[in-house]
């Protein structure tokens, strides 16, 4: 059950996308998300989808990895679809029963919303699948450099992120271990009503939290012992550099966003 979580998982590789500077990938992902929200109608969505398919192909990561990543949010997708399907009025009535009506406008909107969520998630997966968490947080720290000058705790934030990402697999492993131990004693996480299942999770979460706090304590001491004293005077082994490919990618993303904006203007 817990093994399904692919959040923050990196797939090693040497593709064009893997080699891009994390800052480029972060900005491009932002542009991509912006484009998704600007996109109005099928033509725009098709363009976004085409771009995503090209990028996934270039990355060399198996599409199945992306589908697996979508599984945990299946519930949100279905929920969005249902809400949009029944709550939107307009167009011709396609189906009617008691108080429930599905209109053509509702069907269309539900379809586009689901497409938007799936494109959004898959696009951000592409970022985390092709970038090591360390590079990602380094890139974020550098991008946010300007607001650091205003006193924002940018270094602390990016350190927190990278440690969180580092500990996700460790904590998942531990949760699995605790879950097996509880199951061996007759706990049941898979059946029963939602509240029953939530209750069954409690004996799993409590030890997990206790152990997470202990880990945090030990980690803090270990970091201090290795001369950690905040971001000041810190250097990086892997210095980030923007190559021509990065600039080309950024220009490409700009053109892409402009294109989607134009398409949206024409209601496409």
């Amino acid at each position, binding site marked *: 059950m817990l093994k399904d979580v692919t959040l923050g998982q*990196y797939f*090693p590789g040497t593709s064009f996308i893997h080699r891009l500077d994390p800052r480029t990938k972060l900005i491009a992902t932002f542009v991509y998300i912006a484009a998704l929200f600007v996109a109005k109608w099928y033509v725009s969505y098709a363009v976004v989808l085409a771009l995503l398919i090209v990028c996934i192909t270039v990355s060399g990561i198996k599409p199945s990895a992306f589908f697996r990543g979508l599984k945990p949010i299946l519930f949100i997708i279905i929920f969005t679809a249902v809400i949009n399907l029944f709550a939107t009025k307009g167009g011709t009535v396609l189906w009617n029963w008691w108080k429930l009506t599905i209109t053509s406008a509702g069907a269309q909107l539900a379809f586009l919303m689901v497409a938007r969520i799936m494109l959004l998630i898959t696009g951000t997966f592409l970022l985390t699948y092709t970038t*090591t*968490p*360390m590079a990602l947080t380094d890139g974020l720290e550098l991008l946010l450099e300007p607001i650091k000058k205003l006193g924002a705790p940018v270094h602390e934030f990016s350190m927190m992120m*990278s*440690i969180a*990402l*580092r500990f996700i*697999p*460790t904590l998942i*492993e531990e949760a699995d271990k605790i879950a097996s131990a509880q199951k061996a004693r007759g706990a049941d996480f898979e059946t029963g009503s939602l509240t029953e299942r939530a209750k069954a999770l409690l004996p799993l979460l409590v030890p997990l939290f206790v152990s997470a706090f*202990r*880990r945090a304590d*030990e*980690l803090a*001491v*270990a*970091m*201090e*012992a*290795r*001369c*950690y*004293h905040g971001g000041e*005077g*810190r*250097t*990086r*082994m*892997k*210095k980030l550099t923007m190559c021509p490919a990065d600039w080309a990618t950024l220009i490409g993303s700009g053109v892409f966003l402009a294109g989607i904006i134009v398409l949206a203007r024409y209601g496409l």
Partner: protein
Amino acid sequence: MEPIIQVKDVSFRYEGEDESAAPVLDHVSLEIEAGSFVVILGHNGSGKSTLAKHLNGILVPDEGEVLVDGMDTKDDDKLLDIRRTVGMVFQNPDNQMVASVVEDDVAFAPENLGVPPDEIRARVDEALKLVGMYEFRDRAPHLLSGGQKQRVAIAGVIAMQPRCIVLDEPTAMLDPGGRREVIETVTRLCRENGITVVLITHHMSEAVGADKVFVMSAGHVISEGTPEAVFSKVEALRKEGLTVPDTVALSWELRGAGLDVPLAALTPADCAAGIAKALQK
């Protein structure tokens, strides 16, 4: 040889502890010579980890002082110099790794010290080669075995180029194979690279190759000397709830049965030779 660490009459109590109870460290004094291999033994709660944390200024003494290469650990301005002189490896390998890639983790300490990028690269490669983990530099730490993780942690400390490494029960969570990997690695670092090693452990067998052994009990150092000298005091050790190495235990039993074997044989080969000699008489 000059001492690299001097612990002078140190007493320490954790905050919020009962003032009337005996302190966790009670007037402890010891010296660690540069380049030597030192083992600290003691049962649970005897204050070993507390002492270890005094050796690089994570904790500072309530009374007495700790000098690292002449620097007082109470001196805040020297803290970074002290920590880069004395590196520390902890028990749980998972809880001392910060990065999701092995080489990034090893780079953590030199990055904190503001070392230029090219030199960090060189130090990281060298450190990983020293512990035999160079081929694993691109891996995720959570996919390594316990012994491998602990060797990466050692590399992470070596990359600071410390003169001394303190290891607090680094093998407690490892299987016998991993335990051997780690002990062999630190022994090599001491003997071939001249790094002072302070190894805190429960396992008597790990003390066999040491230059000096300290035994702690209830916040005191109750015995110190060469492994042979310390382990010959079998009864005193057993009273402190410590076991002795199997070879010593065997020799002890044989002596009790009237066979004149040397007590201080620490390797199985020496022990066997001693028994053979005694039987021939």
